[in-house]
Each structure stands twice: as structure tokens, then as C-alpha cells.
């Protein structure tokens, strides 16, 4: 196949802020504000960022579960955002989603077999056949098919998430968007579900867009990663580049928050604590959006929005003063004679 499977370019999704008696639109939350990336078949792209940075909205916009305001989503060269309803329904076979909350994402009044069979029935498979296929799918995700006529409340969180995965696989899609698929699960269950997703990818060749707020979760599965902050991608690179030579100060801060399994290392580890909260996405800071919390911000950062620059073969960073290979954020802070909140060390 020529070209990437999915191309997203300058995607913009705004939510209107309504106020007053007549629900007048007084502004917009720029949930996704000009995001571009591509996804090749069979690969995993991880999307990380803190809550509210727009990563879930990004996933939903790609599937048109919320309508984007601008930009391009091209699946196998076809513009997804401009197709009509009928074609969109066909395209949904190719792009499926696993949702974050396994309690809210399954219909409590539907036995899980029916939930898994539903996409098939919608797309014209006969009921009996769809149920049979649903049993096979339940088995593929490590559930017992004879539990198919049970209701969601009879399962644990991890099992429900398996059902959610089985549903997403039912139509044999080529792209699966995983919207924080494990963040609602216990840590012990998280790895099981991640391993399952990994297995399924090897067996069926799905491309994953893996959304997470936790870097340790996507570390093992991603080929490439996007780091998002307040609706924008601040760093996009291969997994190795992001973990070994992060260039954006925000990525540094995120990475420093990941705990290390070795208690000796963990005790000595320094965690950078960013000041303040995520700014109001209704009125983001001028220039670089991260500058209000950035320990190394300069005057320029308030004036000019940093463009995404390629710092090393495909390692894209949107920062005026990217941190260089081998350098740490703390080095840079010290060099500037500033200080930053640090825990541990």
C-alpha cells in the first residue's frame, strides 16, 4: 500500500462556550487546535498529555463522534470529514474505538454478546451468525463465550474492557482508537489488557492510536508518540527519541513524573513539579501555550507561537528553545539561574 493509512492535518475542534439567558456564544474552547499526524498500518502511535489537553477530543474528532471545525482527516486517501452519512457508516467499519470507562461504555441493559454482535448486525450480518461471531470475539479477548448472555454489571472492570475491545474488533477495522483504555483499571489488570491489545495487534494487524495520560502505559506499545498540551502537539517523535532525548520542556516534566520500578533509583529520582494548573483553554496564553508554566520561558515565548521544527530526522518539536540531546531540563534551568519545583533527589 502506498502512503500512510490515516493522515490527520491541522485538525481543529472547538467547543462553543455559551453564557447568559439566551445561551449566547461568548467564546470557544480550543480543545484540538491544529493537530497533524499520520498513522501507518500496523503501527501504534501514542498520544499523551494531562487531563484536559484535548487528546480524547482528538480521538473522537478523527471518528467524527464530535464534528471537527477544520482540518483534514484522510483514511486511505479519502477525506473522512466531507463524506456523506451513508459513506461515513461504511467508513466506520474501518475505524473503531475502545472507550475509557468500561462501566459507561457498555449498555447496562444489553447482554454482552449482543453488545459485541451489534456492530455486525448494523452492518448487515444475520443475527444468528453475528452472535456466533461475537462468541468467537469474546474468546479472542480471553472471555468465556458461555458468559455472553450476562449483563455488564456481572463483570469486573477488566472483563468489561475486554468486551469493549471485542466490540471494537467485531468489524475487523484497520484503525482502532484506544481512548485511555486502561486508565480506569487496577494496575495489575492494566498490563493484562495492554498485553491483550498487543497480541491482537500482532494477530490482526490493527493500527492503534493509543491515547493515555500516563507515559508508562504507552511506553511499551508505541512506535511513535505525540505529546499534547492544551490542544496542540508540542512534541512528536519516535518512542526512542521521546524517552531518550526529549526536546520539549513539557515532555521532560511529564517523563520525570513516571515512577521507576527500582526503589534505589526511585528514591534518588528528582521529579519536576510544574507550577500552576492548565490554563483556561477558553483563553489560552499568547505565543507558546506552555510558557505560563515553563521554567525556561523567555520573552519571545509570549510573543511568537513556536512552529513545529524538525530537530533530528523526524523528531518534531514546537519550542523556541528546545532542550538538546544529553541535556536535562534541570541543567537548562540552572544555566539560566532560575529555579523549579522539585520533589525527591
Amino acid at each position, binding site marked *: 500500500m502506498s502512503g500512510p493509512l490515516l493522515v490527520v492535518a491541522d485538525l481543529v475542534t472547538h467547543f462553543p462556550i455559551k453564557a447568559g439567558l439566551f445561551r449566547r456564544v461568548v467564546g470557544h474552547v480550543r480543545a484540538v487546535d491544529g493537530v497533524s499526524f499520520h498513522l501507518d498500518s500496523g503501527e501504534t502511535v501514542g498520544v499523551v498529555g494531562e487531563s484536559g489537553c484535548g487528546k480524547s477530543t482528538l480521538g*473522537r474528532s478523527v*471518528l467524527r*463522534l464530535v464534528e471537527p471545525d477544520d482540518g483534514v482527516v484522510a483514511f486511505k486517501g479519502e477525506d473522512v470529514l466531507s463524506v456523506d452519512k451513508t459513506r461515513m*457508516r461504511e467508513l*466506520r*467499519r474501518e*475505524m*473503531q*474505538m475502545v*472507550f*475509557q*470507562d468500561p462501566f*459507561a*461504555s*457498555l*449498555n*447496562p*441493559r*444489553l447482554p454482552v454478546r449482543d453488545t459485541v454482535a*451489534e*456492530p455486525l448486525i*448494523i*452492518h448487515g450480518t444475520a443475527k444468528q451468525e453475528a452472535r456466533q461471531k461475537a462468541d468467537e470475539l469474546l474468546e479472542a479477548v*480471553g472471555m*468465556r463465550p*458461555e*458468559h455472553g*448472555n450476562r*449483563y455488564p*454489571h*456481572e*463483570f*469486573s472492570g*477488566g*472483563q468489561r474492557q475486554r468486551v*469493549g475491545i471485542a*466490540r471494537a474488533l*467485531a*468489524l475487523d477495522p484497520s484503525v482502532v482508537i484506544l481512548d485511555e483504555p486502561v486508565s480506569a483499571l487496577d494496575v495489575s*489488570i492494566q498490563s*493484562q489488557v495492554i*498485553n*491483550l491489545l498487543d*497480541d491482537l495487534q500482532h494477530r490482526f494487524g490493527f493500527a492503534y492510536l493509543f491515547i493515555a495520560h500516563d507515559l508508562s502505559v504507552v511506553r511499551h506499545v508505541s512506535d511513535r508518540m505525540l505529546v499534547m498540551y492544551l490542544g496542540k502537539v508540542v512534541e512528536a517523535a519516535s518512542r526512542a527519541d521521546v524517552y531518550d532525548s526529549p526536546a520539549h520542556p513539557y515532555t521532560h516534566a511529564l517523563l520525570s513524573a513516571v515512577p521507576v520500578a527500582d526503589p534505589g533509583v526511585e528514591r534518588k529520582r528528582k521529579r519536576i513539579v510544574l507550577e500552576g494548573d492548565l490554563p483556561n483553554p477558553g483563553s489560552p496564553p499568547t505565543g507558546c501555550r506552555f510558557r505560563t508554566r515553563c521554567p525556561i520561558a523567555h520573552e519571545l515565548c509570549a510573543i511568537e507561537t513556536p512552529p513545529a521544527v524538525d530537530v533530528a530526522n523526524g523528531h518534531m518539536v514546537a519550542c523556541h528553545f528546545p532542550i538538546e540531546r544529553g541535556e536535562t531540563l534541570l541543567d537548562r534551568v540552572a544555566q539560566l539561574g532560575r529555579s523549579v519545583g522539585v520533589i525527591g533527589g
Partner: protein
Amino acid sequence: MTDTRHVSAIDDSIETEARSFGRQVWDRFRRHKLAVLAAVVLVVLTVSFWVAPALSPYEFDEITPDFRQPPTAAHPFGTDDIGRDLLVRTFMGGRFSIRIALLVALSTTLIGTLLGAVAGYFGGWIDALVSQIINMVLLVPALAILLVLALKWGSSPWSISIVLAALLWTRIARVVRGLFLQYKEQEFVMAARSAGARSGRIMFRHILPNVMGPVVVETTLLVGTAIILESTLSFLGLGVQFPTPTLGNLVAEAKGAIDSNPYRVLLPGSFVMLITLSINFLGDGLRDALDPSSGGGRT
């Protein structure tokens, strides 16, 4: 080597045989003793309303020479001012009251659920329109409207039903609208959409079953409300008219005789109470039975 990824947190001792949804609903309903009792009472009452008048030696509008009788062997419920047998009139009255109540409850449930669902699901101008209509109906004083409509449209059981339905659908519509607003944002609805489901499928297969519990409760409450409102109207002389009896107008007719023959008020009155009470218990039981996550279905 065993497959360690295959979590088997489900206790295998739990029965796994398939049970139909209807069977599960019945199993849960059965455990609700009061609701079962209420259902039995309602069935017995309803059957008797249809059977008893046929067995009675008197017609419900037959005038006998024994007027204003207290309960006797010949007339166990007594007779009214012009000598009609009150036993047969009370049971006939129950028949008309039940008929009106069911008609009102079913039609309001249908209208209210449909309008509420459409308003809540689609939002926008459809919601604005439906909500404004609801507000208008709620704003006007119900009794005044009932009186005017009853005067204009006459007082057959049919027209009373239509008048009551026109006033009562708003309650259920508001409940359903609110629930649809809440459910349409749920992830399982989004999942259905991402699977390609159309609006109709989402509304009726995904959201509606989830709102059935509250709807059933509202419907049963409506049966009670309809019986009481019909009685009120009849009491005010604007309900179903002479000679057709309803439980309401029987009480109304008897109000002058409450001192001399209190049974004339108490007997039809207690039927109203018994029906409304049973309906409410039945509603409680049905709500729990229709909720698959309410306990007890499996044990």
C-alpha cells in the same frame, strides 16, 4: 503451560445457563412480595368488575322500588336515591374507571415517551418546541382547563380520557426528556454511533430500555392519578355523566347520604384506594424487575 492472561475472576460455580430476559424479569418480580400481592389484587378486582355485573340479577341502570336502602341481603351494597342496586353500579363503576385509567395511562405514556425522547435526543429547535409546549400545558391551571374541556367535549368515558391524557402527558415527557439528555452523552451511546447505528436504533434499542424503569413507575402513578382525577371531575359534576357509573361519580352521588348511609361513600371510595395503592406497589416491583443490575435475579 496455562494461559495466564485468561483471567477467570468469574466464579465458575455460578450458574451459566442461558435465561431469557423475560424469565429474569419474572424471577426478580417474584421476589417482590408486595408487588405480587398487588398484582393479584388488581387482577381479582378487574376480573370481578367484568364478571360481577353479569352475575347480578339487576342492571346497573335498573330502577327498583327499594330506594335509599342500607346494605341488605338483596342489595349487599344498598341502593341509591332512585332505587338502583349499588353493588352492580359499583362494579360497573370500577369497570369504567379502570378503562379510563388504562386508556389515559397508556396513551400518555406513549405520547409522553415519544415526545420526551425526541426532544431529549435531538435537542435544538425540536427540544425548544416540545419544552415550550410542555411549559404551556403546565402553566395553565389543570382543573380549570379540565372543567372547560369537559363542558365543551361532553363527558363520555372516551372524551374524559382524551381530556385527561392531554393534560397528563407532560409529566412523563419531562422525565423521559431528562433521561434522554443524560443518556445520550454516555459512552455506550457513542460506541453505538461509532459502530454505525442510526438515531432510531440508538433511541429505541440503547436508550429506551435504560429509561423503562422510571417510565413504568410514571405510568403506574398515572393510572392512580387518572382514577383520582376522574373521581374529582365526577365529584364536581363534570365527569362521566348519569347513568354511567364510575367510582368517582358514585362517591359524588353519595355525598348527601354520608350521614345516613356511610357505606355509599366508603365502598366505592375504598375501591379507589385499593386500586391506586396496588398500582403503586406494582410499579415499584416492575421497576426493580426491569433493572438487570438490581440484585437477586441470579440467586
